[in-house]
């Protein structure tokens, strides 16, 4: 009984995170300007990372944690590069 309720709760949380990813993806696709798209992409990768963490809780495997850590690190680097590009028109000068 406890396991069933917990399983349903985790699945509901995954659906909520999927909706959050959909909102962020909508903002990334629709713009209206370039900075809005970068912001949407940023929110998208954080929500995706949280979704991976819930899969880790669900299955009890630690491999999902490592994937989430890599997404967090590389996503931040990507957003910084995109912000630099928006400001200067070049990433590496």
């Amino acid at each position, binding site marked *: 009984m*406890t396991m069933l309720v917990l399983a349903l709760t*985790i699945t*509901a949380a995954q659906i909520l*995170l999927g909706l959050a990813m959909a909102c962020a993806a909508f*903002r990334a696709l629709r713009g209206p300007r370039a900075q809005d798209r970068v912001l949407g992409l940023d929110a998208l990768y954080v929500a995706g990372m949280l979704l991976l963490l819930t899969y880790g809780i669900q299955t009890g495997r630690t491999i999902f944690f490592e994937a989430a850590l890599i997404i967090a690190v590389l996503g931040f680097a990507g957003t*910084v590069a995109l912000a630099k590009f*928006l400001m200067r028109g070049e990433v590496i000068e």
Partner: protein
Amino acid sequence: MIQAPDLPFWAAIIVGLFVFAGAAITLIGAIGLLRMKTFYERVHPPTLGMTLGTGFILLASITCFSVMQSRPVLHEALIAIFITITTPITLMLLARAALYRDRAAGVEDVPRDFEDEGK
């Protein structure tokens, strides 16, 4: 598809509450990203929502793995520290880039530059 870790009752309640709260707060932040009108309003809700949501889900993950392996598992704190440090940096960089672009384009309703007013 639907499965759950085998946890004692009290741990299951903590994990369920934290996971659901984290997901709901993240969704609220993402909805704020959709609903706000201007870019300068839009940068704030995902930052707040994502930081708090990440904190809750990581607390759930720490509780879950600590109970299952019956020893403290704290490596999730790495992600928590990293997200807490990097999210405000992202906000500042993006807002600065947008300000620069708006001022260069000569847009009217840009937030004022308080540094210039003293001169």
